[in-house]
């Protein structure tokens, strides 16, 4: 080994040791990758300055991208609101109560870590402010820009320990470097919120989690690096900052069958947008293509979800608030180290390789909103997927059915909004007092509260559409056409190979029985007559 090699190896070793010793969970800024972009943002004068805050960066971005903030203002990513044109229900994160973390109101500072804006900490947020649009949340390419819960959508501007008391330090991003490195959205930027919905990795969707950052081909043929290597934006083809693909109004059936992408009145994020209406080829193509009239592609091609890591399947808020013998909150882990109980949140159940439930779905979803009167003796559907075998608009879709228990007002029979996070005395996660948390939450939204609460069983459906498996792993015929099969609980279908016709069965067995009796009678007659003959 030469002296130069020796010194190089030593330096490398020293650098490696320093890297290992660092507690920082965020990766170091990536080296600038080759890009086909026609602009090098580091050369823009507006970005060659120090930035003290996110809004300052946005102000600089808008000097060139003059229409960007106005476009973002029109999107659900900004408004967190969606008016369903069919049901006339006002939906969106801002309005819906789900059965995960339940509701945004009274918890703005925490939840808005996933808002594409800065400073949303209460009901008085200025949705018209262009400088409050967060460009970096979607366009960071350094991997150092991170918005933490509790900062009202801002990144941390100083190094902080997160989660608190974890010993892990999240470094404040160098906003100038982040601004100069902006680029297209990526799996990392989309995933920083969509992989972690519901309070953690893989919690909410079941088909979206951090394993999609670098999935194997078995997990996702579209996103696998040794497969098609798609980013999210490849399917969710964005136009004017509006990202297509909505779970509030799902495109379940293409109006004109398959279409090519680029059509303005159609959703580019459907399977048919690329694969067309008759996607199968080869020996069984006709038979398989006939299935597409009634089956969503996802039904066969996503045979299970959560195939790389477990997803949360149950959340029981009713047990939240238990403290240990020292009066301190505690956690219990399950067999693979996920939380099975958390004093802040109650009981959980995780599951991997989940077989989906299957439902008829025509894209129309009815929500149980806060105003909706409910029957607490029944399991409340937070959202109901409409559809039937006869409406001509439905297909059989795979879904994740997430169950739980959450508080409702015993007086009004309506779901409750409660205050989970905050530095005040009313937050459930601080004082474990349901009465205070509910009172605060309901006051925040200006709704009446009877003062009495109980817990109601709820379930929420999530369409499964990501994590498409290789075609060899699509459901085989026998997985539906023999009993017990995947579609056993789906009403209104005749399943050849499994379902019988009672009349036809009775007739068939009758004929078989008669034939058997005929054989026996004929044989007996033969024996009888042969004996008679022998006697003579």
């Amino acid at each position, binding site marked *: 080994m030469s002296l130069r090699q020796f010194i190089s190896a030593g330096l490398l070793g020293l650098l490696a040791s320093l890297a290992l010793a660092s507690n920082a969970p965020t990766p170091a800024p990536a080296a600038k990758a080759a890009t086909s972009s026609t602009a090098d943002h580091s050369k823009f004068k507006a970005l060659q300055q120090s930035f003290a805050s996110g809004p300052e960066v946005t102000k600089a971005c808008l000097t060139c991208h003059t229409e960007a903030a106005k476009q973002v203002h029109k999107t659900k990513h900004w408004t967190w609101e969606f008016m369903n044109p069919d049901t006339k229900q006002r939906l969106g994160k801002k309005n819906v109560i789900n059965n995960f973390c339940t509701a945004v109101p009274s918890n703005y500072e925490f939840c808005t870590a996933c808002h594409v804006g800065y400073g949303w900490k209460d009901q008085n947020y200025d949705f018209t402010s262009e400088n409050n649009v967060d460009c970096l949340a979607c366009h960071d390419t350094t991997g150092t820009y991170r918005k933490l819960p509790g900062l009202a959508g801002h990144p941390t501007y100083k190094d902080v320990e997160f989660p608190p008391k974890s010993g892990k330090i999240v470094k404040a991003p160098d906003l100038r470097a982040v601004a100069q490195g902006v680029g297209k959205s990526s799996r990392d930027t989309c995933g920083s919120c969509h992989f972690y919905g519901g309070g953690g990795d893989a919690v909410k969707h079941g088909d979206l989690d951090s394993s999609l950052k670098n999935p194997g081909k*078995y997990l996702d043929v579209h996103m696998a690096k040794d497969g098609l290597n798609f980013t999210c934006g490849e399917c969710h083809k964005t136009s004017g900052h509006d990202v297509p693909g909505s779970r509030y109004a799902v495109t379940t059936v293409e109006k004109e069958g398959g279409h090519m992408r680029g059509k303005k009145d159609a959703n580019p994020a459907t399977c048919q947008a690329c694969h067309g209406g008759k996607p199968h080829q080869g020996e069984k193509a006709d038979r398989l293509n006939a299935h597409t009239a009634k089956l969503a592609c996802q039904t066969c091609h996503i045979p299970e979800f959560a195939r790389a890591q477990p997803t949360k399947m149950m959340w029981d808020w009713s047990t939240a608030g238990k403290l240990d013998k020292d009066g301190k909150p505690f956690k219990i882990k399950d*067999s*693979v*180290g996920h939380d099975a109980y958390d004093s802040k949140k109650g009981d959980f159940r995780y599951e991997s*390789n989940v077989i989906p439930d299957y439902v008829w779905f025509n894209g129309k979803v009815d929500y149980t909103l806060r105003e909706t009167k409910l029957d607490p003796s029944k399991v409340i559907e937070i959202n109901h997927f409409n559809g039937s075998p006869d409406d001509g608009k439905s297909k059989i879709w795979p879904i994740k059915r997430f169950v739980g228990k959450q508080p409702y007002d015993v007086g009004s029979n309506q779901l409750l909004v409660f205050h989970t996070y905050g530095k005040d005395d009313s937050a459930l996660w601080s004082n474990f007092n349901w009465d205070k948390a509910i009172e605060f939450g309901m006051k925040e939204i200006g709704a009446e509260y009877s003062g009495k609460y109980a817990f109601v069983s709820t379930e929420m459906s999530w369409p499964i559409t990501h994590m498409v498996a290789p075609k060899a792993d699509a459901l085989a015929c026998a997985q539906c056409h023999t009993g*017990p099969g995947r579609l056993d609980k789906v009403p209104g279908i005749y399943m050849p190979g499994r379902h019988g016709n009672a009349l036809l069965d009775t007739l068939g067995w009758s004929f078989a029985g008669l034939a058997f009796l005929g054989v026996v009678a004929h044989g007996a007659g033969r024996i009888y007559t042969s004996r008679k003959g022998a006697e003579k």
Partner: protein
Amino acid sequence: MVKLIAGLIAGAAITMALAWNMASGLMFKEVQSPFGLEETVARIQQNIQNTGNGWALAGLRNPAKAVQQDGGNVLPVLMIEACSTKYSKPVLKEDTVRFLSILMPCKISVYKKNDGKVYIGTMNAGLMGRMFGPLVGEVMGQVAEDQKKFLIFDASKPAPKMIEGMPGAASGGGAAGGGGGC
């Protein structure tokens, strides 16, 4: 006389056909687990460690992982391997039955099926043992008794942590190596 021989042959044929048909059901058992996949594994592992008689965990295989690494999917399967020198030693000492080392270590398979439920698959050690003479029959009879204890669950107790990192745990279908009581 012809009728008698024909009857004997027919009887033997029917018996053989029945035995052929029922053999798989007799040799192997499958029961549904009340727990999730990993929790079932963890509880069985804990039971094995608590059973005594020299039982120790020898490995946890994940053959589904190997399929994933090859770009495919199968529903999860985890195979718990356990061994006890108390039972393996007498069999391994006897030349005439040493070939039964092929059955070591004992395996319990935990898997999910298309109905979404978790099942436990075991070998009927007692019945199999009786096919190989008195020595193996006695040893395997005791193994069968212990195996029953592996599958007695107390749902009131919290789920233990699944024990990974043993030989074979990450290698999919690879070799388990030594240790774990054998």
